[in-house]
């Protein structure tokens, strides 16, 4: 998979995911819209129920009133027939008498209703039943005589001065609203107000908001009263949006979680893809590099053997000592290279063991420098020691520490093509020691700086190999330093040189 393809598929993946999210959002929005419509419908139904219910109650009351009037409003208590239900209407109350069929006391069978009356639903149905019985069983002609009723109703209709408060008390209204809403399955909080057509408030709940900008429902009360004043019932749902959202919260939250998961995983996938791509490039480089490095000694040895065995060449041309020397050299080189790769793989698996002892870094530096003295003076170079650290003894693995110092100095020499000038400096810092190794070599370009510690990474130079290597040295250095609880940093400028700084704590525990 080449880089372009990875890019294209990543972009496609992201675009399709974005589309999916937009679709999901639209879907949720649509659901909210539908829910809102449903809710509005339900509320409107409930409101018309309320209006009907209020009217019905008034009618029942009115009919009850009428019945009683027909039965004789002014009749005295003694004249009350004991076997038939009837009402007595006074200015402020209605007394209902239910026939005492069980011969119980009168108290149990009568009920006094205060006007404005307070009836619950049960009572209303009781009254309805009562009225039906009265009409059916008694067959009072005057009651059935519709003209009388109509006349009375018309009379009533012309009583324009009856106030709304007299027609329905506030608590009764509240009860009706509550019951109707519950019947429709609306349980969220609401505020109500009753206003007349001049926007004057007659009743209102405590938190009714005059300047409410939210959705407000309105219905006309007593819609069949065409002569009296018009009254409107207003209902607000202050938490309507919250309610609508809460009705889809499971869907919303699960979508959100899924989107987050998918996004995270996709991100990880793309990052891994690029990492893998880079890794495979590095591995390829390493393999071609390693094949070359390993092939050279193998070719040399096989050539040497071929030369020795070639009978067409004169024995005196075959300088046996020289050739066997070469074979020996190359075998050793091959062994070392294989060893390096093997060590790295052991290191990878974390099988390496550290043997921590007290090590004087200054002594170590002096010893390592001695090994390089010959090479440096051969190249007319100098190596400068500035061992300024007051405390130079640390807890470290001596062998690995020697290796990393050799490695870094070797690198400094390998990547310096002019006369080398290497400065090794030490100083104490933050409960540890800093060793800095500065060279005047070719330097490292910024874009490669972060990668030089990666395994197998070598600053790419194509087939031009000025410096031999596998790209393992700095990886090893970094790992060992990390095992010691320290860190390594690099500063570099192209063609001016590089400075590697190692920080090692006195104690890595």
């Amino acid at each position, binding site marked *: 998979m080449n880089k372009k393809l990875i890019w294209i598929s990543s972009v496609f993946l992201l675009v399709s995911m974005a589309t999916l999210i937009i679709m999901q959002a639209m879907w949720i929005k649509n659901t909210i819209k539908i829910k809102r419509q449903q809710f509005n419908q339900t509320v409107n139904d409930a409101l018309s129920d309320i209006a009907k219910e209020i009217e019905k109650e008034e009618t029942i009351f009115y009919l009850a009133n009428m019945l009683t009037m027909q039965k004789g409003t002014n009749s005295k208590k003694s004249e009350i027939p004991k076997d038939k239900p009837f009402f007595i209407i006074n200015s402020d109350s209605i007394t209902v008498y239910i026939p005492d069929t069980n011969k119980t006391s009168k108290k149990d069978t009568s009920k006094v209703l205060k006007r404005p009356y307070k009836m619950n639903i049960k009572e209303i149905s009781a009254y309805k039943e009562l009225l039906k019985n009265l009409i059916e069983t008694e067959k009072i002609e005057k009651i059935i005589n519709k003209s009388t009723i109509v006349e009375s109703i018309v009379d009533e209709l012309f009583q324009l001065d009856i106030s709304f408060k007299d027609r329905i008390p506030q608590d009764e209204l509240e009860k009706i609203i509550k019951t109707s809403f519950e019947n429709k399955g609306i349980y969220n909080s609401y505020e109500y107000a009753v206003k007349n057509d001049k926007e004057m408030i007659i009743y209102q709940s405590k938190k009714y908001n005059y300047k409410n900008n939210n959705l407000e429902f309105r219905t006309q009360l007593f819609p069949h009263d065409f002569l009296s004043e018009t009254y409107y019932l207003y209902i607000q749902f202050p938490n309507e949006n919250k309610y609508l959202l809460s009705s889809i919260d499971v869907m919303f939250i699960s979508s959100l979680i899924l989107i987050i998961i998918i996004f995270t995983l996709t991100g990880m996938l793309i990052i891994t893809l690029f990492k893998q791509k880079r890794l495979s490039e590095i591995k390829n480089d390493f393999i071609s590099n390693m094949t070359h490095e390993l092939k050279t000694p193998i070719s*040399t040895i096989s*050539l040497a053997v071929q030369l020795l065995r070639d009978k067409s*060449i004169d024995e005196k041309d*075959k300088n046996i000592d020289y050739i066997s020397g070469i074979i020996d050299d190359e075998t050793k080189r091959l062994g070392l290279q294989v060893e390096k790769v093997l060590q790295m793989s052991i290191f990878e698996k974390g099988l390496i063991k550290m043997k921590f002892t007290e090590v004087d870094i200054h002594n170590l530096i002096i010893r390592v420098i001695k090994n390089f003295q010959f090479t440096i003076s051969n190249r007319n170079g100098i190596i400068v020691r500035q061992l300024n650290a007051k405390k130079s003894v640390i807890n470290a693995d001596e062998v690995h520490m020697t290796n990393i110092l050799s490695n870094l100095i070797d690198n400094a020499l390998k990547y310096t093509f002019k006369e080398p000038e290497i400065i090794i400096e030490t100083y104490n810092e933050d409960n540890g020691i800093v060793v800095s190794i500065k060279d005047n070599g070719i330097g490292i370009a910024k874009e490669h700086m972060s990668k030089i510690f990666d395994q197998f990474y070598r600053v790419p130079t194509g087939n*031009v190999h000025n410096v031999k290597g596998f790209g393992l040295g700095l990886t090893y250095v970094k790992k060992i330093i990390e095992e010691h609880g320290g860190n390594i940093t690099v500063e570099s400028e192209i063609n001016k040189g590089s400075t590697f700084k190692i920080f090692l704590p006195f104690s890595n525990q």
Partner: protein
Amino acid sequence: MNQKVRILLVEDDENLGQLLKQYLTAKGYETEWYVNGEKGFKAFINSFFDFCILDIMMPVKDGITLAKEIRQINSDIPIMF
């Protein structure tokens, strides 16, 4: 035609280069050995060769580049990597 075949050998590894030169010389070829592509190219311009043996990975100038440059000057000469 008694003239010896001249071979241009470009190889950065000291041992291999040395040995190869010795072998080819013993085999009766006149061999010139250079350690990098740049030096090899200069030698190629300055004298005549019948045959080229090149390494690929070398300092300064790699074998492939060198071969391309040689081909521009001489399109017939055999090149071996």
